[in-house]
C-alpha cells in the first residue's frame, strides 16, 4: 500500500470521491483502495448520502400548466410501447420530445477498437429478453436499438448498433453511472462487452468500469448482430440486449 492509497489519504479525499470530483489515476487509486477497505467505504458512503441530501435544498418553481399531464401521457405511451426506447438514429425527434434524451447525454468517452474475432463456446446466456427491433438510420447506415435487461428483467439501459459492416456497437447504461456515482461499493472489476452474431461468432472487448462510453467495432453488418451483453470476469452476464431477427 503506497502512501497515496493509504487510509489517511483516502479519508482526506473522501468528499471528492463522494462528489465524483476525482478523475483519472487519482480516482482509480481511490476506488482500488475502497474495494478492500470497508471503513473507508463507509466514510465515502456517508458523505455521498449527505451530498445527495443537499439536493433537497434546491429551489422549487411552478412548471408550466399541463406539465404533469404531459409527463403522464409520455409515461403511458412508453408503457404501451413495451419499453421501446426513443429512436436514436439522429432523425428529428417526434413532436413533444424535448432535446434532452438518453442519447443527448453527457459527452462520451469512447473506446473505438478493432474487434477481436472471438469464436468459441457460447458464453452468453440469454433469458427473458425483450426484442426491440431495427430502425433504418440516416446516411445509408443501419441502426438497431435494444433495451438492456438484467437477469431479473430490469431495464438498465440500451445498446445501439450502427453502421454497415463494420458496425459500431455502443452501450449506454445510465443506471450503471448512477450506481457508480452513488455507491462506492458498486459492482467492481472489469467487464466484457460481448456482441454475438446470429451464426455464433462473438466479438469481445474488455470494458473498464471507469470508462464512460462503451463502444466497439464489430466486423459484421448490423443485421447479423443478435445480442450484446455485459459479462463480468467470471463469465456472469449482468445485462443483455437482444436484437429482433430481421
Amino acid at each position, binding site marked *: 500500500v503506497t502512501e497515496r492509497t493509504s487510509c489517511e489519504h483516502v479519508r482526506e479525499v473522501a468528499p471528492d470521491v463522494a462528489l465524483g470530483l476525482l478523475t483519472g489515476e487519482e480516482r482509480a487509486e481511490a476506488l482500488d483502495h475502497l474495494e478492500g477497505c470497508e471503513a473507508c467505504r463507509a466514510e465515502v458512503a456517508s458523505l455521498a*448520502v*449527505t451530498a445527495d441530501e443537499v439536493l433537497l435544498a434546491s429551489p422549487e418553481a411552478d412548471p408550466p400548466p399541463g406539465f404533469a399531464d404531459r409527463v403522464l401521457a409520455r409515461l403511458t405511451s412508453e408503457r404501451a410501447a413495451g419499453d421501446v426506447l426513443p429512436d436514436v438514429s439522429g432523425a428529428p425527434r417526434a413532436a413533444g420530445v424535448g432535446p434532452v434524451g438518453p442519447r443527448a447525454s453527457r459527452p462520451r468517452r469512447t473506446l473505438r477498437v478493432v474487434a477481436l474475432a472471438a469464436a468459441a463456446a457460447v458464453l452468453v446466456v440469454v433469458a427473458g429478453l425483450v426484442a426491440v427491433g431495427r430502425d433504418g438510420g440516416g446516411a445509408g447506415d443501419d441502426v438497431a436499438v435494444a433495451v438492456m435487461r438484467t437477469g431479473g428483467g430490469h431495464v438498465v439501459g440500451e445498446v445501439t448498433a450502427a453502421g454497415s459492416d463494420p458496425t459500431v456497437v455502443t452501450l449506454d447504461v445510465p443506471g450503471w453511472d448512477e450506481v457508480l456515482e452513488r455507491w462506492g461499493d458498486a459492482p467492481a472489476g472489469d467487464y466484457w462487452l460481448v456482441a454475438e452474431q446470429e451464426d455464433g461468432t462473438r466479438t469481445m472487448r474488455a470494458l473498464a468500469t471507469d470508462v464512460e462510453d462503451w463502444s466497439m467495432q464489430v466486423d459484421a453488418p448490423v443485421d447479423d448482430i443478435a445480442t450484446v451483453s455485459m459479462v463480468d470476469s467470471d463469465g456472469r452476464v449482468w445485462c443483455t440486449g437482444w436484437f429482433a431477427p430481421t
Partner: protein
Amino acid sequence: VWEVSYEALFAGYASGDPEAAAAFVRRVERNVYGLALAIVHDPAEAQDVAQEALLRAWRFAASFDPRRGSVMAWLLGITRNVALDSVRGRGRRPATVADVPAAWSVDTTDLGDVVDRRDDAARVIDLVRDLPPAQRDALVSVTLLGLSTREVSERDAIPHGTVKTRVRLALRKLRDDMGVRQ
C-alpha cells in the same frame, strides 16, 4: 390529499399504477422543475429536462435503493445530471463567469425564500444555511450546480486548493450535523 410517503407513491409510479403515478408526479413536479430551471435557466429547456428526469426515474426505478437515501434526493440527482447533460450538450458550461448572471449564486444560495418545504427538506436547508458562507457557496456550487472545483475556482477567482478545502470541510460538517451514520 395523499398522505402516503414519497417512497410508497414512487413504488406505485414505478409499477405503472396510474393513480399513484399521477399523485407522484404532481407532488414532485415543483422540485424537479425548480432544480432544472436553476441549472438550465430556460423555461422550455427546463420543462424538457424535468420530463426526461421523471421518465428516466421510471425507467430505472429498479436502481433506487431506499437504504441509500430518499426518493426525492435520488430523483433530484437524476434531474441534476439530466440538466447538466443538457447544458453541456449544447456546448455550454453551467454557472461559469461568462454565461451566468450574478444573480445565479444569489438564487441558489439564498435559501431563505423557499417555502412549503417538508420537514426533511427544511432541516437540510437549515443545516446548509448554517454552514460558513464561503463553504456553503462552494458546496452548493458543486452539489446543486454540478460545477467542478476548478470551475468554482475560476468563477470566484480563488485558488483551486481553497475551493477543494471548503467543499471538503462543508460536506463533512453537514454530514456530522445531519447525523448520517458512517
